[in-house]
């Protein structure tokens, strides 16, 4: 097993060296709109070269040469800026401070999580998110202490990429975004929407705290990088192709978060290139009464 794998309840951060969706921070509206159009154009199906024998598949990454360049630049920035900062943060800050920082960062993500829960039609989850936010705001010193967790309301997150997925938008080509790291066309569009629609950032700007969204994004990025320091060091040292490994990690994790890997599995079966095992079959939902054993071969 790969060491650590930093398995935890979903965060909106991709498991990446070079950051967190929040790192996109605040884009001017016009630039955001422009990027959105650009990304949607990319998402449009490429003209297919019919009749040609399919070449070696790209694992959802037709823009690989470009992505590898952006990945290398991100890696360089990570090595000289982000990783050292996260390392010092981990060494200097006492554990209770780090816990508090993490709690506040997660707390501030809840209003936008709530928006997404509603947009996805997840009523029960949106209720939990709202309760958690109110409880930790009032009793937990504005999120510094996670009281809600002890009341059966653990942290959960979702993002606009997941919302787009729930509306039927496919992942589109894999993309490595400058600074923000591994993504895809759909999730990249989600980040752009988040950068203009996050209620907390909007509130900050209304209160003339224009620098706060950036500070928030920076702290979230350092916290994320700090928590994954050992894991990512291990991956980097032990993989033969770090880029390809991070890509498959991102794509598999996202597929799992979004629909338990259902769509990826069905698509893999259709392509048929990797025979019986293009992608493992999705896990039945045992907590909702799927029978423990079914003896007849599943489809």
């Amino acid at each position: 097993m790969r060491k650590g794998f930093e398995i935890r309840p979903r965060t909106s951060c991709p498991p990446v060296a070079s950051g967190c969706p929040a790192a996109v921070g605040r884009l001017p509206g016009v630039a955001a709109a422009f990027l959105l159009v650009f990304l949607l154009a990319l998402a449009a199906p490429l003209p297919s070269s019919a009749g040609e024998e399919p070449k070696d598949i790209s694992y959802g990454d037709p823009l690989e040469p470009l992505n590898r360049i952006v990945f290398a630049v991100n890696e360089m920035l990570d090595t000289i800026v982000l990783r050292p900062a996260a390392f010092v943060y981990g060494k200097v800050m006492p554990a209770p401070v780090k816990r508090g920082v993490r709690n506040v960062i997660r707390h501030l993500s809840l209003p936008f999580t709530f928006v997404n829960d509603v947009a996805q039609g997840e009523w029960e989850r949106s209720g939990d998110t709202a309760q958690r936010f109110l409880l930790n705001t009032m009793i937990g010193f504005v999120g510094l202490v996670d009281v809600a967790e002890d009341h059966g309301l653990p942290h959960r997150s979702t993002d606009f990429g997941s919302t787009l997925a729930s509306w039927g938008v496919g992942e589109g080509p894999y993309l490595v975004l400058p600074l923000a790291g591994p993504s895809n066309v759909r999730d990249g569009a989600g980040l752009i929407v988040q950068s203009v629609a996050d209620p907390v950032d909007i509130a900050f700007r209304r209160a003339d705290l224009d620098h706060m969204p950036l500070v928030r994004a920076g702290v979230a990025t350092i916290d994320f990088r700090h928590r994954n320091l050992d894991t990512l060091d291990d991956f980097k040292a032990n993989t033969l192709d770090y880029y390809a490994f991070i890509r498959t990690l991102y794509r598999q994790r996202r597929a799992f978060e979004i629909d338990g890997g259902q769509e990826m599995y069905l698509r893999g079966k259709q392509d048929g290139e990797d025979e019986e095992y293009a992608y493992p079959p999705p896990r039945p939902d045992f907590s909702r009464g799927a029978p423990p054993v079914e003896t007849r071969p599943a489809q």
Partner: protein
Amino acid sequence: MRPWFLALFLPALLLVVADPARADEGAGGFIRELSANVLPQLTDPATPVDERRARFREVLSRDFDLDKIGKLVLGRHWRRAKPAQRADFRGLLENYLSGLYTNRFEDLAGLQIEVDGVRDFEGWSMVYTTATRPEGKPPVLLDWRVDRKDGGYAITDLVIEGVSMVIAQREEFSAIVLESGGLDGLLLRLRARIAG
């Protein structure tokens, strides 16, 4: 039937039926047995690293199906590979995996694995488990692909929270095959990595 025969036969029959690995528990029983009896041998931090490595090699060749894993990991490249390349890859993969995973077992100490369910597919099964960890860390979903091997069972993939090790390895190896212009490039890289 003579009494002395019964005296021998009945206990033997009971033994066979009572042994969970051999009784009708199938792939789920295999994983349950493995996590209860084999995993603790690999994770004990008190055992010297050399001995743990030797134990893991033993487990890798007995409880994993490396021929099948090699085939799944190479995917489309397997079909195009020459017999000599396949054999070469099989040997390199074993060395590569034992080097890669031995040091990671410390992280698995104290893991308790519960089988949630089993699904049969054509010729293989998925065993879905939840691993609880000490110190209040959140539980981890582990899915095991299990194939038949030599009349018993063998692991052919491990899916950790939705991330398949076989698929991850396949995509990584595939990138190297493409970059180096063929399977021989991958074999070369693996050989170099194993040599350290």
